[in-house]
């Protein structure tokens, strides 16, 4: 993986840069120019079936996300942001492909007035409702954002090495439109089961992948109804990796998504749809979810969610259409303090997303898993 902090030299470079910033900023009120924020979610997870999302049958406390974000405001319109992160995914094979401490973001942002900005470096991809805050446990109703739409993520967010430009088209209007365009490339992990054949046993694989020549746009429309917005986006890229090489057809991967996000006084309602096509003739991945939450008391909320994923994949024996994942969940969260939230969630899942080998034609695996977690942020 290219994302982890690769050497003492690189770490020394970051430390040196921060010390330089601190020294230069002392006279300008360092406490207001250099801000440090962070969050941590620690969970306990267990499942009734085979391992799913790194959760073993006998349970695990090795389930955690944490991040430390440093934000330095060099001038009125110039900001430098670095985020480092830690993730543990129980007994998932993914743990062996990520470093304990990983560089998640490192980007410079310049604002051109009030309505236009550009980010250059390693920055979160503007995709959907939650990509940029996908692991912020004090905000999320469940331990993770809907898996079908967001997957597990490169680390604390899907990021790109490149540039992101955002612009507000009609500021001050009740119909505010915010657009983003992005270009670059990114590393990610490809996961999947290789079915058994007469000559070889099946194998669950986690391999490094690379998406190149990424171009995308996203638009959000804020409606006059306070708290309600709708959005959508599209992107194309070239995927490289052992698994994508097997399921991709000719041409680029095309990605489309749409979102509805409603956050009202006590009610939260969200739905998103995503369609990924891995080249002409390649695999097709379609997913959607609906999520409804209600704040029963000031500190107590309950949320239900249905997450659906279908996969249509070319095989040696023809195309195979799978009801890849069906995950129904209910979660309760309690806010002990503004920055301390406890959650308990139960999931009932049918599908092929578990970290076991499933042969084509085998029935879907039924899994009931639960996660109890505590999140803090500052």
């Amino acid at each position, binding site marked *: 993986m290219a994302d982890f902090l690769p050497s003492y030299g690189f770490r020394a470079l970051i430390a040196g840069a921060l010390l330089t910033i601190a020294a230069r900023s002392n006279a300008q009120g360092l*406490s*207001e120019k250099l*801000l440090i*924020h962070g*969050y941590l979610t620690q969970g306990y997870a267990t499942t009734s079936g085979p391992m799913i999302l790194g959760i073993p049958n006998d349970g695990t406390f090795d389930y955690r996300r944490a*991040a430390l*974000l440093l*934000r330095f*405001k060099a001038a*009125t*319109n110039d900001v430098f*942001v670095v*985020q480092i992160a830690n993730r543990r995914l129980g007994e998932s094979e993914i743990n062996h492909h990520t470093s304990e401490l990983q560089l998640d*973001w490192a*980007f410079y*942002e310049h*604002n051109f007035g*009030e309505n236009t900005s550009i*980010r250059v470096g390693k*920055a*979160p991809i503007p995709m959907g409702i939650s990509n*940029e*805050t996908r692991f*912020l446990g*004090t*905000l999320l109703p469940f331990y993770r954002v809907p898996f079908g739409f967001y997957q597990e993520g490169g680390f604390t967010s899907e990021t790109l090495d490149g540039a992101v430009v955002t612009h507000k088209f009609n*500021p*001050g209007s009740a119909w505010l439109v915010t657009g983003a365009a992005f270009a670059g490339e990114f590393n990610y992990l490809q996961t999947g089961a290789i079915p058994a054949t007469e000559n070889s046993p099946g194998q669950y694989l986690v391999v490094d992948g690379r998406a190149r020549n990424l171009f995308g746009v996203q638009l959000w429309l804020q409606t006059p109804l*306070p708290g309600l917005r709708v959005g959508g986006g599209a992107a194309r890229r070239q995927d490289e990796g052992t698994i994508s090489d097997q399921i991709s057809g000719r041409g680029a991967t095309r990605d489309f998504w749409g979102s509805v996000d409603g956050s009202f006084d006590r009610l939260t309602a969200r739905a998103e749809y995503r369609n990924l096509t891995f080249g002409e003739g390649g695999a097709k991945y379609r997913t959607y979810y609906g999520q409804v939450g209600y704040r029963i008391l*000031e500190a107590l909320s309950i949320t239900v969610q249905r997450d659906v994923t279908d996969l249509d994949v070319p095989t040696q024996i023809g195309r195979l259409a799978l009801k890849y994942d069906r995950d129904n969940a209910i979660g309760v969260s309690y806010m002990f303090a*503004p920055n301390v939230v406890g959650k308990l969630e139960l999931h009932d899942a049918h599908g092929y997303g578990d970290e076991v080998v499933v042969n084509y034609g085998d029935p879907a695996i039924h899994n009931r898993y639960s996660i109890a977690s505590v999140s803090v*942020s500052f």
Partner: protein
Amino acid sequence: MGIRLLGIALLSVASSAALPCQGDVRVIVVVNAANATSELSRDRVSQIFLRQLSTWTNGQEILPVDQNEKSPTRIVFTHDIERQSVSSMRRYWQERIFSGHDAPPPERVTDVDVLTYVRSNPGAIGYVREGTDLGTGVKAIIVKDQSGNGSADDSHR
């Protein structure tokens, strides 16, 4: 374009530029005395404290300063200007912070602390409980309610 003053309380005490009260708390918006601005629309004040406006018309950086979340003054200001609860604003800022976009205005614990900050920074804007002795170097401004953009916006971009 119709502009109406905020609430009955402001009509009767327009010179003090007070916002409506909740309970016994009334709030006024203050800027550095060197600031040429004398009035702002409520929407503009909201945008300033949401960090959606960053400079005054003279190009100087706007430096909003908040009060502690538990402060009654903060609760009234958030309700009347942002039209949100403090908890909703906390959620808003968490999303902004952890998506790398923004940071909330710095917080001060007391009215005196806010006034000290505003007095020390020519671009600062804050709010304090009505009746607080502003002292020198700080002045109150009038906050007007309005539907859409109005002349009050001319005081800053």
